[in-house]
Each structure stands twice: as C-alpha cells, then as structure tokens.
C-alpha cells in the first residue's frame, strides 16, 4: 500500500458513484493488513521507517523551512493590498475627502466602532464633518462600512503595526480636517477661504470625542432605563391583575 501511494502522487480513484442519501460506499483504506502475523509486524515496522524517512527528509533540506523572522523582514514583508488592518479615509490629491456625514457606515457598524460628529458651526455647507472616529479596539474588521459607503470614502489598508502604549490612542480620527466635502471645497475659489473652512484634526485624538459623547449619553441612558423599568413594572402589574381570577370564580372554586 505504502509503495503505491508514494510512487504516484495522484488522487485516489473515486469509489463508486454516490447514490442519494442513505447509500453507503467505502473507498480504499490504507490499512496495514495484520492477517499474516509476521508479515504484519514487518509491514508495521516498515511504516515506522517510512515516517522517519519523511521527517529526516525535511531535516536534510533546510530550504523547506517556512519560518519568517518578522521584525527583521520588514523590508521584504509584503502584505496583500486587500489586507484589512486599519480603516482609512480616502483623501484625494488635494487632501479633500468626500464624507457627507450620511452616517450609513455608523449605523451599519455592528459594534459601534465608528463615531461621527458634525461641526457645531459649519463653515460653508449645512452639515460638515467634525471628526470621523474609528475605534480600533472594538473593530472586528468586517468591512461592512466600506461596502455600504455610497461615496467610497472608506478603505481598509494594511498598516498592521498598530500597537500603542495607551489604549485611548486606539480611537483614531480618520479625517485629516474638519470641514466640507471635496466638491464643496473645490467650488471655493479663494485658497485662504478654503483653508479657513478646513480645521486640521489629530489622527490620535479620537478619545476626546468619545469621552465627550459618553458624558452626553450617560444622562440620556439613565432616563431611558428608568422609563423601561416603569414599563416593565406596569406590564407585570397588568399581568398580575389579569391572572387574579374574578371574585365570583374564586367563590365558585
């Protein structure tokens, strides 16, 4: 058995055709036949030597080593261009983005890793992006935000070395500036006015946005929870009232 299978690196011949569910078929099994006691023992011992031949074959050929020495091979290490490691904003040649703050990605994000805030005082248009915060610490790299974005603002890139010493730094602000979208900016003739409409953003500054948001939401949440609890109490009370049998039934029982 072992000789045949080693000589011919071919797929084992298919057994018979599959015949619907329930029909059984058995293929060739590379089983060591132990019927002849002595022959079986020798076959068994030979099988051990076959295995040893394989392992020593790899020992003798250092070219088969597949280990990569990571930090040393940084220059040659090439990750595929689709590798999803870090969410990034597509900025065009002028450094403008196309995010209109439609918040589709924010809603599509399964774990609230995207937090979008608008500028309180938009410079030019009605709605302007203030910060597009992406939390690497909660992101699952599912790519949903990228495929649902109607304007192609987002992309994943392969910058995978994202460790930092403070986890608050894992909330990135993706947009380079707070301000209007590319099409609006391009209509502004005056370069100074353009510059005035754009306010630079720190890429690592996302945690400030999140902290402000948390403070705002806390109060809202407390109120909501109280309302929910009240509703639940009301429901239980209604149920109890319904469960208590009417007085005449009680008398009859």
């Amino acid at each position, binding site marked *: *058995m*072992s000789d045949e*299978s*080693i000589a011919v*690196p*071919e*797929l*084992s011949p*298919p*057994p*018979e*055709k*599959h*015949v*619907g*569910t*329930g*029909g*059984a*078929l*058995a*293929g060739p*099994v*590379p*089983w*060591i036949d132990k019927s002849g006691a002595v022959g079986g023992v020798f*076959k*068994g*011992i030979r*099988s*051990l030597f*076959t*295995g040893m*031949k*394989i*392992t020593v074959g790899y020992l003798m050929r250092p070219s088969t080593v*597949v280990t990569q020495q990571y930090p040393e091979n940084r220059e040659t290490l090439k*990750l*595929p261009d*689709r*590798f*999803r490691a870090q969410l990034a904003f597509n900025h065009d040649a002028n450094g403008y983005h196309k995010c209109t703050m439609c918040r*589709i990605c924010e*809603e*599509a994000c*399964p774990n609230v890793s995207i937090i979008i805030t608008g500028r309180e005082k938009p410079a030019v248009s009605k709605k302007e992006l203030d910060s597009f915060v992406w939390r690497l610490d909660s992101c*699952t*790299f*599912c*790519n*949903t935000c990228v*495929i*649902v974005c*109607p304007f192609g603002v987002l992309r*994943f890139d392969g910058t995978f070395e994202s460790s930092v010493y403070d986890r608050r730094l894992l909330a990135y602000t993706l947009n380079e500036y707070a301000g209007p979208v590319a099409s609006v900016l391009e209509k502004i003739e005056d370069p100074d006015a353009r510059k005035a409409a754009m306010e630079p953003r720190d890429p690592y500054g996302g945690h400030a946005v999140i902290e402000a948001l948390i403070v705002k939401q806390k109060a809202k949440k407390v109120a909501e929870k109280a309302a929910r609890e009240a509703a639940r109490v009301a429901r239980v009370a209604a149920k109890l009232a319904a469960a208590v049998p009417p007085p005449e039934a009680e008398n009859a029982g």
Partner: protein
Amino acid sequence: MSVHVSTLQARISGESTASSPLSTEEYFVNMGPQHPSTHGVLRLVLRLDGETVREVVPVLGYIHRGIEKMGEHGNYRQFVHLVDRMDYLSALANNWAVTMVVEKAAKMETNERIEAIRTLVCELQRIQSHLLWWGVFGMDLGGFTPFFYGLRDREQICDIFEKTIGARLTMNYIQPGGVMFDIHPEFVKDVKAFLSYLKPKLVEYDALLTENVIIQERLRGIGRLSAARAIALGATGPVLRASGVAHDLRKSEPYGLYAQVDFDVPVGTDGDCWDRYWVRMEEIRQSIRIIEQLIDNIPEGKTFLVKPAAKIKVPAGIHYSHLETARGVLGVLLVSNGKESPYRIHCRTPNFNNLWCIGEMATGGRIGDLVAMLSSIDIVVPDIDR
C-alpha cells in the same frame, strides 16, 4: 411540578459504581477548561476508574457569548460577521449559512459567478479546516511533527484568502446578495499552484501518519458509533459519514454549484476513530476534485447584483436553511417579524451535536482513547457554546 432542575454539583457527586473485583475507587477529574487537547475552553468532567473512563460529563459555556441574543440586536448584515466567530475554521461556510437563509427569505438574486466563488472558497476552507484538524489530531496522539506540517500547508490557503478577502480567519466575505470582493486576479493561479503543491503532500501525510502502525493501532475500533446511534445522537458531517451514513447536504440538497460538480461522499464502515480519520482525509481529496472542476470555469459576472444595502428586510415568518461545513450540518433558523433585525435567530451548529456523541463513545475507553475520540470529532469550542 414534576420537573426537577439539577445542578452540576449534584450530577457529579454520584456514588461509586466500581465493579472491579479489586476494590478500586472511582474518582472525578476535570479535563479542562484548560487542557491541551480540549481544543479551547471545553471542560469534561471524567469519572475514572484508574485509566478507564467510566463517564464523561461535558460542561459547556466557557466561551458562551450569546451570539443569538446579539443577533437580535443588530440587523441581518451585521449578523453575518458574528457567525465568523462560531466555527472559526469554517468562517466562510458560516457566512454562507446566514447569507443563504437571508437570501432565501428576502428573495435576493445571485448569479453563477457569485455561487462559483462561494463554492470555491468554501471548499478551500474545508481543506484548510481538515488540514488543521489533521495536524492537531497528530499532536493529540503525541506526534508533534504533523501539527507543523498541517499548519504549514494550511497557511498557504490562508495566504490565498488573505489576497482575495483581506483576512485569514474571520472573513465576513460571503454577504447577502453577493460576495464582498471579486476574486483577486492571481486567485486562480494561486489555487492551482496550491493544489499541485498539496497533492504530493497528501501522500506524505499518509506516509507519516495514516500508514503509521501506531496510529492505526490507536484508532482501530476506538469510539465506535453505529449508524443508527450516530443519527439518533444528532451527529452530522464526517462523524456521521464515518458511521456509514452518506448524508451530505452538498449531495442531497445541493446549494451553490455543488449540483454541477462531480464528487463522491466518502463513507466509513465501522464508525470508529479510524473511519473518521479516513473520511476526513478522503474529503480533502474530494474537495480538491471539486476545486479542480470549478477553478477554470468561473463564469463572468458581477459580485453584487445590486449595491449592497446596509439594511435588509425579511418577510415575517420562520426561515431555515442549512449547509455542510467541514464539521457537519450548520443550520440557521431565522424568525422574522418583518423588521430590520431578526426577531430570533438560532444556529444549529454541528459541533454542538457532534460533541454530544462523546458521552456514548468514551465510556469504557482509556484517557488516551478519549483524547483520540475528542480529536476525531474535530470540535471547535466556540461553535458549541456560541
């Protein structure tokens, strides 16, 4: 009320039922949650008599994350990426299971190209999963080297996925309505190169492990499961097929392009560990056959027929569809009330049902056998606990 709710403590504090003429004392021992061969955080409480296993009480839930509850709080597209984390070695099949039920319920159309890509990547992932299993199986039986060989070759499939999908493990690739990316321009070339690399390696695997006399001695007749018991215990996938039941949803209810390809369903005879081993090894070869038939014939077409919407509406009702992952039947039950998020979503995971067989298999075996059986079931713990 006649129902009595028990606890684990009560369950494992039974009296000793030693029947040996030498008055031996039975004892309980915890295998896991941290144990090298429980493949994660599975805990088995064993009642042992010396080396002999008298009873196995699996204790689950160490990695229960409430995926079903989380699913109720998101929309359908968001649920797809959660199931990546159930059976992480068949992430694509898990994606596909959810996609399939959502597409069926919401009547979304796909084209041949999408289905071909899905079939291809799922079969690649089946090989990948079986390669990892092969390596781990060797390691559980005490041979370290197969683990590295298996992982080395699996890495190549991961690299192919990385190129096309951008992720190696949790991919979220198969989406309701299509696939997230078109295949990479080098995909076809890479897959062909990989297949021609893998075939001689399979011969090597056979020489190293399959034909090894120690392996055969250790697996033969261990953990027998008859066909009728396997079905009754809810086993599916290679575990069921090793018992001699040719139940493979790829054949009996073809999805994707499985109806167009020619492949066989390997079936065992005895349902012992050896058969389960052999069925999986043979499945790798059958998957290679499937891929070879499809790789040159990927039809042209779009990868999303319409721009994927963030939210999908599914008509009210119960929807269920299932498919065959590397470990068995994965079913997704979707209960919709017509809103954007599912009212209830339930996953019938193969490992959950397959693990249930261990109680019946392991009784009377030895600890070493138990490890072999557990490994031959090929469990992935997050898939059990969800």
